[in-house]
């Protein structure tokens, strides 16, 4: 049971953290149509997070709720990929300030949705039938997110000199974080053994093919990646998650007895 809960929290935290990040564009998009598109992506992700947290809460059975899981856990308890908590700009410390960069947003959404179309596809046969149902719904959404982000990745890579430079910089910055996809956490191992989760290592070849194909069409190069492998999914995050959660959780925590 606890293997399933830990695994659900990993999936839910991924969705809520990226949903929170993508919603930061609301009202600030580069063109109205993209404002609407990013809000859609964010809504899908928050919808996924809600279903996953609800299922985790149900299995916990201790009276917890989706909101307690999202708003009253601290950053070291979050199990999302580090990639998803990074701000929408290049490498800077947690308390630095920089303008949001749409290339970073698009490249991240691309790298993540290229993984999730395979993850959700595999989870449609999860031993947890609720998770299997959530996966079927989320697969449709991730397919759209992949479509949207891949289209823009190609436009940026094969657009102007500036957009090419920005897209390449975003790929160089973010690709190393995807190494975390291929390590297997204890929660994932347990979930795979229980027939609930998917062994991500089996998805790597398909992900590589999607990424290589899109980068080639975008006239971008895939950098060599080595060194530190992020460990957000075991609770060791970047400096950025603390700020994201401080903002997201502030109102709920200021009024712990409030009803909304």
């Amino acid at each position: 049971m606890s293997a399933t809960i830990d695994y659900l929290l990993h999936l839910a935290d991924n969705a809520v953290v990226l949903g929170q990040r993508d919603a930061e564009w609301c009202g600030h998009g580069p063109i109205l149509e993209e404002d609407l598109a990013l809000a859609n992506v964010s809504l899908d992700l928050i919808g996924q997070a809600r279903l996953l947290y609800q299922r985790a809460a149900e299995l916990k059975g201790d009276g917890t709720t989706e909101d307690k899981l999202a708003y009253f856990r601290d950053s070291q308890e979050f199990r999302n990929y580090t990639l998803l908590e990074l701000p929408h700009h290049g490498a800077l410390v947690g308390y630095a300030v920089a303008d949001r960069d749409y290339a970073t947003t698009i490249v991240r959404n691309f790298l993540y949705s290229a993984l999730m179309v395979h993850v959700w596809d595999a989870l449609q046969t999860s031993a947890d039938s609720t998770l299997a149902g959530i996966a079927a719904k989320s697969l449709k959404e991730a397919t759209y997110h992949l479509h949207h982000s891949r289209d823009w990745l190609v436009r940026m890579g094969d657009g102007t000199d500036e957009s090419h430079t920005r897209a390449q910089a975003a790929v160089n910055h973010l690709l190393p974080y995807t190494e975390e996809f291929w390590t297997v956490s204890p929660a994932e191992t347990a979930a795979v053994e229980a027939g609930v989760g998917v062994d991500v290592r089996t998805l790597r070849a398909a992900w590589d093919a999607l990424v290589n194909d899109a980068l080639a069409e975008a006239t971008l190069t895939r950098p060599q990646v080595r060194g530190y492998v992020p460990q957000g999914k075991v609770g060791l995050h970047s400096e950025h998650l603390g700020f994201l959660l401080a903002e997201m959780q502030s109102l709920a925590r200021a009024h712990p007895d409030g009803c909304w």
Partner: protein
Amino acid sequence: MYTQSFNVPDQAGQKTVAVTPSTEDAELMARFDARIDADGRIEPQDWMPEAYRKTLVRQISQHAHSEIVGMLPEGNWISRAPSLKRKAILIAKVQDEGGHGLYLYSAAETLGTSRDQLLEGLHSGKAKYSSIFNYPTLNWADVGAIGWLVDGAAIMNQIPLCRCSYGPYSRAMVRVCKEESFHQRQGYEALLVMMKGTQAQREMVQDAVNRLWWKCLAMFGPPDADSPNSAQGMRWGIKRISNDDLRQKFVDATVPQAKVLGITLPDPDLKWNEERQHYDYGQIDWQEFWDTVEGNGPCNKERLATRVKAHNDGQWVRDAAQAYARKQQERAMKEAA
């Protein structure tokens, strides 16, 4: 949302152009007038007097800009929404406002003015938008109160526009009104839930209503006696009900809702008038309204600068899309050759 005074001129002192058709236009004008008198619709391909076109472009663009600028005060709370359900509702709502902006810019384009031209008007400060968005959203209850009161006021103003004489605008308004009325009920429901919560939550609701109430009354625009453009708008079927009548309708509808909610509307003069069969209400501070319309409210500069920044920062993204589209076209032509 969000009409206020669509009869507020974009530039101070601008007057509605008098309709004086030349002789050769007289027949077209007569046909146009007859269609308006018969409560028919004017469509983009139809002849229309220049002043009608200009007034509509101004009105639709003010409305579109209001939707887009209106995303900012509510967007202020997306990252801090206190539950995932409320976060999703708020994102969807702000997204709807963006969608309204999109249909309205498209409606204005049917009159021969491009979205770029309209945005240029907004960014240069020439074009107006609803003043209500120049006030800050200071606590979470503002999100519910904007839905209940601001969208509520907007609906009063906009439902008559579903019958407006210009076809594309009236059709856009049908969809906009459906969504706004959903937002209005959603906002009210959010406040009802908060009123059943803690004392601090009830205080948030009262505080939000205190700050928004008078601004909402002003949203309907200057009193009829001071609205020189209204009569022409009425004649053309692009304004159906006068500012004061709409304002009264809003007050009459809102007072009972406030009672159910359990909050006090901040107006000591608000009371039922048996003779008029309407609520009387106190004096609106028109000086403050005009100060804000003219750009000197608490958030005008922030709102506008934020729109300008988003547009400028996004230039490279739009350029990339165009450059890519051109390359694709060239490749297709080469292949065809």
